[in-house]
Every structure is written in structure tokens, then in C-alpha cells.
């Protein structure tokens, strides 16, 4: 018979999304998790199995809570500039970090990231009525703009050149 969990799993996973979304996987120690998530080490292992187990749960939560709604919003994008603005202003920290930090080393993470990006591509393709490859290029450009910084300036400049698409 297991003891009752003395923590809110939902809150812990939400905090893990923030923590893993702001720092590389190897830069987050179990001590960091215990400190920031307010959960005992033993409970953490018992509930999630391992640090990677918690990471996968957090990544899937991020995709459901942040990337899913973004795809819904993209479906209503009026034009390419609107789509770029939606992607560059969304909370995608963990998705971007997962793509560069963990996906190359973890097939399961790579598959989750690929599915999420494909969902965004499809939403853009459907909303703008453009070919899938062009929608993928728009997603890539938007994520690149996020990494580059100054999303408003760079995004606006790109959007002006994309006007003919609309």
C-alpha cells in the first residue's frame, strides 16, 4: 500500500516545465528539482521513476498546454505576419530547448518535438492555404526569430516580404 502523495502532481509538473524550459537538461540537477518543485526526492523518484521520466511528462504537458493552444490560434491566423507574431510571442521555451538540447540525444524527445512542429506546420498551412513545405519554412523562420531575439523588429521585416503570400 503506497503512502498518500504529499504534493500536487499537477503543480510539480508545471514547475518542471518552467525549470526545464529555462535551462539545459544536464544543467538541472535532482537537487534543483527538489528545491524548485517543493517535492521530496523519494516522492519524485516514486512518482516519475527518474529525472528523464519527469522531463518527458513535463515536455508532454508543455506540448498539450502551450503548443496545442498555439496550433489552435494559428488556425485562425489572418496572414503570414499574424502567424509569425503568434509563434514568436508564444511560451515555447521547453519546445525550443528540447529541440536543440535533448532531441539529438533522445529518440522519444525527438519524436515529441517532431510531432509538435508538424502540428504547427499543418495549422499554418491550413490557415494560410500555402503548401506544407512553405508552412514548415514559416515555422522554422518564426522559431529562428525567437532564438535571434528582437522578434518584433525581425518578424516585422520578414512579414513585409511575405505580404505577397496573402
Amino acid at each position: 500500500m503506497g503512502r498518500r502523495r504529499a504534493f500536487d502532481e499537477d503543480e510539480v509538473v508545471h514547475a518542471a516545465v518552467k525549470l526545464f524550459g529555462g535551462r539545459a537538461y544536464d544543467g538541472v540537477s535532482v537537487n534543483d528539482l527538489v528545491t524548485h518543485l517543493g517535492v521530496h526526492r523519494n516522492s519524485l523518484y516514486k512518482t516519475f521513476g527518474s529525472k528523464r521520466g519527469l522531463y518527458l511528462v513535463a515536455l508532454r504537458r508543455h506540448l498539450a498546454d502551450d503548443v496545442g493552444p498555439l496550433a489552435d490560434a494559428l488556425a485562425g491566423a489572418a496572414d503570414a505576419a499574424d502567424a509569425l507574431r503568434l509563434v514568436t510571442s508564444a511560451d515555447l521555451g521547453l519546445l525550443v530547448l528540447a529541440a536543440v538540447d535533448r532531441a539529438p540525444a533522445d529518440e522519444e524527445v525527438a519524436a515529441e518535438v517532431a510531432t509538435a512542429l508538424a502540428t504547427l506546420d499543418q495549422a499554418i498551412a491550413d490557415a494560410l492555404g500555402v503548401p506544407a513545405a512553405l508552412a514548415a519554412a514559416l515555422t522554422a523562420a518564426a522559431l529562428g526569430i525567437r532564438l535571434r531575439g528582437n522578434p518584433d523588429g525581425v518578424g516585422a521585416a520578414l512579414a513585409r516580404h511575405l505580404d505577397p503570400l496573402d
Partner: protein
Amino acid sequence: MATVRIDGGELVVVMEGLDKLWAFKSSLTIPLANVRGATADPGIAADPKGIRAPGAHLPGVITAGTFHLDGEKVFWDVRDASKAVVIELADERYSRLVLQVDDPRTTVALVENALR
């Protein structure tokens, strides 16, 4: 120190040198189906370990053997906490194993890859 290997569908942990004496165990064999994951966790050595029975615990020197904490049994074999790996189990005598291994990163990858 312990060595960890995957042998068919099983995780095999072998205690090395005198550790098999302190730990009261020379090896453990766990079906992979009962292994939930592995994590490098140098910070765990600073946590409360519970009540030891049987085994050895000289704080700061060696923690080896079976420890009872919060209704769980945890197997420890650690001298150098910087090389500690936690292997979480299900439906086993031990809830988790805390082992010192030569290369925590490689051991974690070995176990996690075997579970995928």
C-alpha cells in the same frame, strides 16, 4: 562501487571489492520490466537515509546495505557521492538502488536505453 550491466531482459548489479561485505550483497538481478528509470544524483547522499538493517553506515565514508525509510527499502552502496546513480524499481524487494558507479552518465544511458 558497483558495476551495472544489462543481461538479456535483466539488470545485473555486481558489488565490487569489499563493498560486497559492507553491503551484505554481492549482486542483484532485477527484471527490466521492474526497472522504472535511472538518474545521476550526487545530491542524494546528503538526504536522510533512514534506519540501516543490515549494512554499514559511516557518515561521509560509506553507506552500504539495506535502509528503511518511509516504509520503503532502499539499497545503498556509495562511498563517493559524486558518482551516485539512483535506479528506481517497481514490485521489487527494494524500492530503489543507490549505487556508486564508475561513470554515472554512461550507466544512466545504459539503463534508460534498455527501457525504451
